[in-house]
């Protein structure tokens, strides 16, 4: 069976975020290089109809940090159809410090945090699973911002594999009724207070005697699926990927969590299978289909031979730059911020 391939996360930094950073740097943080909590958001991947060729152009959702990134998470509202991801932000005072920072240590400590949340019984890890790291150096005089994101994701060994028939449109097996019921229930399972936001991760099970589905937060896995056979368990997540055969990055940690739950609770419900098989729903329908469009979410059966690594698996997830190298990115805002540059353009 083919190995599941995950679309890597990528980032978009709004210019407004750099403004917020300048403010935080000058007024709050000053010369301190302490890590700060930061809030970002992502939504479902979309496809855009190309009016010239009629083709559907897939458009992945990026993790975007906006102006309100430094607000406490309680005050942050995800944009409509989006979900919140919590991150760790670290700004360096000089380019040398930025270059020489022990990035692997920062990365590992965040991965450790995620792993702790996954392995702590009873903990709700939904916020931890999509945690990210952002390191920056802000050249305030030149309005240049060097930055590097990391989205730690655990490597499963052996790898998760997808059934031969691959990922298929979820609406073919769940029917429109099922999709609608999930969409509706997701509304009540908000990840934040914002009424239009979406939960990042969820579970779904069929309601007996109807075609509809119940959804629940992921930390209720053991109770919610107690009497449910594996073939009917659905693990869902808001999928930032729009690729037809490759789910988004957040699924990796979700699968790690579920696999860990399965191993650490061998006594649960049914006889524990050697090969863990799960239905995964890549939720890409934060907007209901309108005007004859199809549902876009994907469903696939992934499986993985249970092993017993109780220690933390290694993690990957540094963002590659625009040419695919592991290197920081640069945002040059001089054209948008530098007063002298603005004056030149305005003549």
């Amino acid at each position, binding site marked *: 069976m083919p*190995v*599941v*391939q995950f*679309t*890597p996360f990528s980032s*978009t*930094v*709004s*210019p*407004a975020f750099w*403004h917020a950073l*300048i403010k935080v740097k000058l007024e709050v943080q000053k010369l301190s290089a302490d890590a700060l909590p930061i809030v970002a958001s992502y*939504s479902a991947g*979309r496809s*855009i109809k*190309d009016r*010239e*060729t009629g083709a559907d*152009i*897939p*458009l992945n959702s990026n993790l975007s940090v906006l*102006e309100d990134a430094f607000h406490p998470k309680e005050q942050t509202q995800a*944009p*409509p*159809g989006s979900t919140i991801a919590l991150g760790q932000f670290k700004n360096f005072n000089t*380019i040398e410090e930025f*270059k020489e920072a022990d990035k*692997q240590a920062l*990365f590992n400590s965040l991965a450790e945090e995620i792993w702790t949340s996954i392995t702590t019984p009873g903990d709700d890890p939904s916020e931890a699973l999509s945690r990210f790291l952002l390191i920056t150096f802000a050249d305030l005089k030149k309005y*240049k911002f*060097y930055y590097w994101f990391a989205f730690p994701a655990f*490597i*499963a060994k*052996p790898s*998760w594999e997808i059934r031969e028939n691959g990922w298929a449109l979820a609406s073919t097996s769940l029917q429109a009724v099922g999709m609608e019921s999930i969409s509706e229930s997701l509304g009540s399972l908000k990840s934040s207070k914002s009424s*239009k936001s979406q939960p990042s991760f969820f579970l779904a099970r069929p309601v007996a005697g109807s075609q509809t589905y119940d959804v629940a937060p992921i930390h209720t896995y053991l109770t919610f699926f107690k009497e449910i056979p594996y073939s009917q368990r659905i693990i869902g997540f808001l999928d930032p990927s729009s690729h037809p055969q490759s789910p988004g990055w957040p699924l*990796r940690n979700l699968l790690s969590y579920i696999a860990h739950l399965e191993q650490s609770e061998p006594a649960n419900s049914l006889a524990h299978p050697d090969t863990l098989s799960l239905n995964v729903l890549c939720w890409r329908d934060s*907007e209901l289909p*309108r005007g004859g469009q199809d549902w876009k979410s994907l469903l696939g059966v992934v499986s993985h031979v249970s092993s017993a690594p109780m220690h933390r698996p*290694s993690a*990957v997830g*540094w963002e590659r*730059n*625009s*040419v*695919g*190298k*592991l*290197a920081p*990115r*640069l945002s*040059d*805002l001089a*054209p*948008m*911020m530098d007063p002298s540059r603005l*004056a030149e*353009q*305005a*003549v």
Partner: protein
Amino acid sequence: MSLHAIQAQYWAVRDYLSPVLRESKFKEHGRITPEEFVAAGDFLAYKFPTWAWETGDAAKARDFLPPDKQYLITRRVACLRRATSLAYTDADEDAEKMLSFAEEGSAGDKEDEWVQTHSGRKASEAASPGIIEDIPDLDGLAEGPSGIDQGIGNLRLGDIPSTASEAPPNLDDIPDMEEEGLEEADDAGQAPVKIEPVQVAKGNLLQVRTYDVMITYDKYYQTPRIWLIGFDEAGNPLTQSQVFQDVSADHAFKTVTIEPFPHSTRLSAVSVHPCKHASVMKKVIERMNAGVVEQRQHASNSSSPSGKGGEAGKKKWLGVVRKVTGGEKPQSPNNADDDSDGMRVDFYLVVFLKFIASIVPTIELDSTTAF
């Protein structure tokens, strides 16, 4: 003090001194009051949930708007091609197509149509000198759009262009700190790099940019005003000249300029200058009103198949408006009054976006085509 700074000061003073429009003028002048802006914005955000109200910088809040409804924003609007890459020829000029605001199929009703020029145009990537340099040199791909399309479909791991690993133009300043050791090599089982080629090809060849689009209320011109912040396919903000590639040639450098965004302390954004908005909106509204009214009469006088189409169009049009505004404005007791009035002000921003879409033709702003 530079000319621009003086100009900005002048605008600020002029804006401060101009009174807030209180009286509804939208049918006479195409201008709207802040209340109408809020009502139209509520409708837009309700009907198209990608639009949402923002509060902006509290220090910059305008007191004539509710604190939590300072401006509207929609994020990540796709822009598949550059407007400058749309090649215009005489043949295209002849390819004008009448666009109808009524439901598809309401044939024969010419009044509510308007002209879409160049409807048959095809994007010609090669026709624009401005973008060629951005297209990576993909070895092994046939030239031309059709070849590219096939190329995308056939891309595999081995096709990763070697040239693409050379430094892109704007990364000269990035310190050389590639760290290959950072990532464990044994992620091969779930190698994301295998997916890369498709993304590279899609991003660079089609150059899918995304835009954050804001609508503010301009107190001086008493119209909505549009602001654009663009990102390239890698998520980097676009420069002004890059944004101008997405503005139709008739408008770039004339009505589209870069100015300080009014709800932020430092941010500048590309904006369509609103000095002509009111008159254009007035014309569009008049035309649509005439169309709606005539359609209604047409529908009530005729039971022919084309009449049915018109009726369906009308119902959709007015029914939708009424449903949303019901709670906010005194409902006219007689529905016939509503109908003969034509367009309600709630619809203003939807129409406004259609107008803006003609200035930035390749930014897929007009998600409202369902109307």
